[in-house]
């Protein structure tokens, strides 16, 4: 059972009046992460909306020591910091409990530009948590396609709709044989909170990816941010799962789709809520293009169902 909302801690690590857009899903997610990690942590950020959201120097909207690093280096920089604090402790230059070292990167900084260093950090099993808040585009620079952008999406660099499906980044991280991998999204805050609490208690590399529906990139009314996150899960376009030492378990409602107890909703309604699919939905080949997207969703569910049966 997930922690009930009323039992979540009071602590706020994301401070009111930061620079994020109203309704920002990245900020919403980071707030829950803050409740789970508490103040004893060091945050690394690659260029992204969450950096723009930090506010104006000399003010900072997050209550952690924050380090702004280059786009490609979340994995390597976080590795350096976590090793440095461990060595400082060994040498007696650091007292008390070691801080949690975590990187907070967008899908651009994770799927694409940060992939190499992240893969290397995972292979070395560095003691960090890498968070990817996935808004399925390079939002901070005006919405360009990324490896996380799903097929059919209109972005400034896919003016006729993206032709390729997104990659399954969380699964790729799992295949690095790291101790913990999880997916989450903002509509299920207690699920996210519990996953971060668990990740914090595990030594080694942890990867948590959070689907973050961004009203600006996805083109919907900002008040519906949580609704879109919920629709993504209920349609199976986003799957909730976690893997402890390679053993995958699914979380509800995804678990019901995997077991066949319940069918996910058709993807149409989820697509229709978003302006980034509107040109596709109005085009002459709309039917085929929707069927293609539904096919991607169905394939992912079928694949993950079978993949979860394999563990050693």
């Amino acid at each position, binding site marked *: 059972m997930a922690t009930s*909302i*009323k039992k*979540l801690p*009071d602590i*706020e690590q*994301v*401070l*009111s*009046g*930061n*620079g*994020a*857009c*109203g*309704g*920002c*899903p990245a*900020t*919403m997610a980071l*707030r*829950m992460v803050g409740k789970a990690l508490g103040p004893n942590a060091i945050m690394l950020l690659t260029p992204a909306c969450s950096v723009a*959201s*930090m*506010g*104006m*120097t*000399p*003010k*900072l*909207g*997050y*209550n*952690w*020591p*924050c380090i702004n690093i280059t786009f490609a280096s979340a994995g390597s920089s976080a590795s350096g910091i976590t090793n440095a604090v461990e060595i400082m402790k060994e040498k007696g230059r650091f007292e008390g409990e070691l801080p949690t070292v975590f990187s907070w990167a967008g899908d651009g900084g994770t799927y694409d530009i940060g992939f190499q260093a992240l893969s290397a950090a995972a292979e070395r099993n560095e003691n960090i948590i890498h968070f990817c808040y996935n808004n399925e585009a390079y939002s901070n620079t005006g919405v360009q396609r990324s490896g996380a952008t799903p097929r059919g999406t209109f972005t400034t660099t896919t003016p006729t709709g993206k032709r390729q499906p997104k990659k399954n980044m969380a699964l790729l991280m799992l295949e690095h044989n790291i101790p913990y991998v999880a997916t989450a999204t*903002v509509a299920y*805050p207690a699920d996210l909170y519990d996953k971060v609490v668990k990740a914090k208690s595990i030594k080694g590399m942890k990867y948590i990816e959070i689907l973050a529906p961004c009203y600006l990139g996805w083109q919907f*009314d*900002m*008040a*519906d*941010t*949580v*609704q879109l996150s919920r629709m993504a899960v209920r349609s199976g376009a986003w799957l909730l799962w976690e893997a402890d030492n390679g053993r995958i378990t699914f979380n509800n409602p995804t678990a019901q789709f995997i077991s066949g107890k319940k069918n996910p909703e058709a993807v149409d309604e989820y697509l229709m809520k978003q302006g980034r699919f509107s040109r596709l939905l109005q085009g002459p080949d709309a039917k085929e293009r929707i069927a293609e997207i539904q096919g991607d969703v169905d394939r992912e569910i079928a694949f993950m169902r079978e993949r979860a049966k394999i563990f050693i």
Partner: protein
Amino acid sequence: MRSVTKAYRPISWPTLGAGGDTGSWRMHRPVVNHELCTKCQFCWVYCPEAVIDRKAITIDYRYCKGCGVCAVECPTGAITMEKEE
């Protein structure tokens, strides 16, 4: 503790309102009807700005950006978005 040299000092410090008085961004103001509110705390958990008091269910309008997420997520319809003057 050894003294920290100037080069290693942080350039920013955690502060409320790091993006300014973000309440001024608001086009619509969330207003809570306490007679309908069941104190379920859904609005509190989803508010990205952390401006809702989880016990009293009151809103800090200095920083509330008026996104309307709280109003959409409230299960009893206790929050309405009213146009700012």
